[in-house]
């Protein structure tokens, strides 16, 4: 008797719901419409920092079609996605903190009428000094955010592991550098949108393009001051998120409140400009790094100082500040490590999590530092990384327990695929290859709000037609989590994915899941799904075994059949097997849960932040061509090898790798999100024309290489694939630019102007020499 090969896991699968999405049948939030629905619009502050002296909606209320106007005092309870930093109001009460901060919201019969009515809301402001630079904000006496507890210092973390000063003192080589990561934003093509209705019995339903229905549910209850049982949150198909929809936004509270007030459904759709101001994107960071190496290139000490520009609100900033240091302790053994990170409030759109939360920026600095060391030591940059790599089942310097680790295989894969050894030395001036490596978490071991309940749960039912239904709180934001669940359940239950319906992200129908962030879904919800599916499988195989008078262990469920593995000619259709099981056990339903291990981190304060059940690993090689006269960089090709533990569905994993490489490359050479201080805090260009997202013609060829080092804590060994593959894209390209033209630009983005200046400075230096 031999266990059959996995018949679903690791294959290619057609994505659940893809046809409906592609053909325009799936209804995203703005595609929904309800009878008597009103449209809402938010009046936003034109000032970056201003005291609100008075708001008078009288004129607006008299305008055609206007039904209601609300202001901050209608919902005064502060909230925030991180329970320790509730520093936002739905609409500004005392002060507006950035250009774009919501001040009032109007509901009208049509969207045009709502837009027109904004001009009828009179707001009297006292304009205050605005702070756009984090260092100036930290030095200021005036506190930007009224809920801030330590002035404009939003969060400070300082942690040290080992004797860094001695390490640097004894080091044969110290590389010291300043790095600057600009801001970037998510750019999901679907703008944020929310729709609410209130039933006559008071049940509030909110449909929202969110990636965290559960947190939205909790915060709605808190801010609206009604019990959570009176609220239903439904996440329709979401048109991309990337972290940009991972906390509650003003529009969700506004439509809910206006629906309560008017008794009518209310919808609000952000304009593209509003999406850019809502932001919550990647923090700008200024980083100072010192790396100490011994004479052979082994790391002995790393010292990091980081300043994060947080914008007007905390968002996830407490976590971001920790992540900027905590997530850097793999894939290399650092010897000793110290980081000091500070996050400042500024009068700008709030920053938050964007794909690769908190660690993309310092990873850029770390990997450029390693490149500089390799050159100083005359070592191949891949060899330097190999020498410093940590193994599987190891402990990082900050006491995180790493399980499986495929980093060396990732390095080998990109080295081979890119022709690194043969090609690198032969490429002429202006043409280069660069390498970088990284790691990321597969979810975090501790939930955002402290609790002892499972992190993920799934319910599965089987029916008499031979079908399974999976009820899951997980948010499929395009990454394919519904398909992942169907593959895992199908593997156990003998069902192809087309026989499985996944009902997800509806707080009335589905068990709680914390949401699509921190790359947690495959590992956590996948494990919960596996748990439920295995329990059901047991029931089905027991009923088949009973009728065949054999051991349940020899019954296999594959491809809509139950098969006797000792006598493969004996088989029965799964529909009949399900009937047998329902006759024996009653209605076929099981729940599964997953909770994270709590013993995989150090006991120091903050040690749990960054602790994950399993870590993914990534290596990139990038190939660039640089025009030394114009400074233009063409990213020709990106090879990315990513250790995802086990690819549950290969096409989905490749898609995550490719999308990550694309997004990371854009952050090096094209995209920049920020405001203009001279223009009083107006956004640089809140449109897709000015925020330069790559088109087909700007995107490099990308080769996704899947590496599998299965982790005991992942379902079938699986780890994350959605965020890790972005990280080292950025330093690989920056290192390739150096390889091409021999100069470095350490403040991103690498614009043609900066690069030309660097090349000219280098030439002048060489001319002088």
């Amino acid at each position: 008797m031999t266990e059959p090969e996995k018949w679903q896991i690791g294959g290619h699968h057609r994505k659940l719901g893809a046809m409906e999405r592609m053909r325009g049948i799936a209804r995203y939030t703005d595609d929904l419409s309800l009878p008597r629905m009103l449209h809402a619009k938010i009046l936003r502050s034109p000032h970056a920092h201003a005291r609100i002296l008075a708001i008078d909606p009288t004129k607006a209320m008299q305008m055609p079609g206007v039904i209601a106007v609300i202001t901050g005092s209608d919902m005064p309870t502060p909230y925030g996605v991180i329970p320790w930093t509730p520093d936002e109001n739905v609409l500004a009460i005392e002060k507006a903190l950035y250009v774009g901060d919501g001040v009032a919201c109007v509901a009208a019969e049509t969207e045009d009428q709502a837009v027109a009515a904004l001009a009828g809301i009179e707001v009297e402001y006292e304009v205050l000094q605005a702070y756009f630079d984090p260092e100036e904000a930290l030095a200021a006496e005036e506190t930007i955010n009224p809920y801030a507890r330590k002035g404009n210092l939003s969060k400070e973390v300082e942690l040290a592991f080992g004797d860094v000063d001695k390490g640097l003192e004894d080091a044969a080589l110290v590389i010291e550098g300043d790095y600057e990561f600009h801001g970037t934003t998510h750019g999901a093509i679907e703008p944020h949108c929310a729709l609410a209705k209130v039933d006559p019995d008071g049940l509030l339903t909110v449909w929202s393009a969110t990636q965290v229905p559960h947190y939205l549910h909790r915060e709605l209850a808190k801010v609206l001051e009604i019990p959570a049982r009176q609220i239903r949150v439904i996440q329709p198909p979401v048109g991309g998120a990337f972290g940009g929809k991972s906390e509650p936004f003003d529009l969700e509270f506004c439509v809910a409140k206006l629906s309560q007030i008017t008794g009518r459904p209310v919808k609000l759709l952000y304009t593209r400009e509003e999406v850019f101001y809502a932001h919550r994107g990647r923090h700008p960071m200024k980083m100072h790094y010192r790396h100490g190496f011994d004479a052979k290139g082994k790391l002995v000490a790393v010292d990091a100082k980081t300043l994060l520009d947080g914008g007007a609100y905390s968002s996830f900033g407490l976590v971001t500040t920790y992540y900027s240091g905590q997530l850097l302790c793999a894939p290399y053994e650092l010897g000793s490590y110290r980081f000091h990170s500070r996050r400042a409030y500024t009068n700008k759109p709030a920053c938050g999590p964007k794909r690769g939360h908190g660690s993309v920026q310092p990873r850029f600095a770390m990997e450029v530092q390693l490149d500089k060391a390799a050159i100083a030591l005359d070592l191949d940059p891949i060899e330097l990384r190999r020498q410093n790599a940590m193994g599987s089942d190891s402990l990082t310097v900050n006491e995180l327990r790493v399980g499986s680790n495929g980093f060396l295989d990732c390095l080998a894969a990109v080295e081979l695929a890119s022709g690194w050894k043969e090609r690198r030395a032969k490429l002429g001036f202006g043409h280069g290859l660069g390498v970088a490596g990284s790691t990321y978490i597969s979810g975090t071991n501790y939930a955002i709000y402290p609790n002892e309940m499972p992190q993920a749960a799934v319910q599965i039912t089987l029916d008499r037609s031979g079908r399974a239904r999976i009820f899951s709180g997980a948010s499929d934001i395009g990454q394919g989590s519904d398909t992942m669940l169907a593959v895992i359940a199908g593997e156990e239950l003998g069902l192809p994915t087309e026989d499985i319906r996944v009902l997800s992200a509806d707080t009335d129908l589905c068990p709680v899941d914390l949401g699509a962030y921190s790359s947690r879904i495959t590992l956590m919800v996948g494990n919960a799904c596996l748990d439920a599916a295995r329990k059901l499988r047991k029931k089905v195989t027991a009923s088949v075994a009973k009728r065949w008078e054999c051991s349940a262990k020899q019954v296999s469920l594959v491809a809509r059949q139950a098969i006797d593995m000792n006598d493969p000619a004996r088989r029965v259709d799964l529909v009949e097997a399900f009937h047998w099981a329902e006759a024996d056990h009653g209605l076929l339903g099981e729940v599964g849960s997953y909770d994270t291990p709590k013993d995989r981190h150090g006991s120091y304060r903050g040690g749990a932040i960054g602790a994950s059940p399993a870590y993914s690993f990534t290596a990139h090689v990038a190939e660039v061509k640089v025009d030394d006269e114009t400074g233009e960089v063409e990213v020709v090709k990106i090879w990315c090898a990513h250790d995802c533990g086990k690819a549950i569905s290969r096409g989905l994993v490749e898609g995550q790798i490719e999308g990550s490489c694309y997004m990371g490359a854009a952050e090096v050479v094209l995209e920049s999100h920020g405001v203009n201080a001279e223009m009083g805090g107006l956004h640089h260009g809140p449109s897709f024309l000015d925020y330069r997202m790559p088109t087909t013609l700007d995107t490099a060829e990308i080769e996704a290489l899947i590496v599998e080092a299965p982790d005991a804590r992942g379902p079938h060994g699986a780890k994350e694939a959605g965020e890790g593959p972005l990280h080292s894209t950025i330093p690989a390209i920056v290192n390739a630019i150096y390889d091409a033209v021999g100069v470095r630009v350490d403040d991103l983005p690498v614009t043609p102007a900066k690069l030309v200046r660097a090349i000219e400075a280098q030439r002048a230096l060489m001319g002088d020499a």
Partner: protein
Amino acid sequence: MNDTDKTRADEPAPAVSLLRFRLNGADVSVAVEDHRTLLEVLRYGLDLTGTKQGCDEGECGACTVLLDDKPVLSCCTLAAQVEGRDVRTVEALAEREAAALLDAFDRHDAAQCGFCTPGVLMSAEALLMDTRRAVTMPEAAQALSGNLCRCTGYTKILHAVVDASERLAEEDAEHGAAS
């Protein structure tokens, strides 16, 4: 009211015209305010929500439809401009091209969130109907350069378009050889 009270309450109601055009193979006539875009009429007037609004300012391509078989941005096309003309949306993809494209997109995992995909499919369909042969990756990239996708990095989309064009070309070759 004084001069600063420039609210729309004082403005005349927008002019409404009867707009007649061919939509997805059928004649339609619909009363439309003159300032409405084709996107507004499709999405909010006729409930054809397959055509998406990503930016409403002609930059993302999610609202791409075919006007007389040429891809246009419906958010930048005044509804009045389509009077008497032929409009096709994702709800009525061309049978042959769509079958090949949808199958290829599905096999290649070319849609992630799917929000840009209806627009991408319209541009791809226009390319395939225009060329009627196997296209190259650069040709596909050129034809789709007006459609932003934030999920895929375009790799799988371009492979799917080339794959679909090759399958159609094979079918054409077989058909030609048989006739």
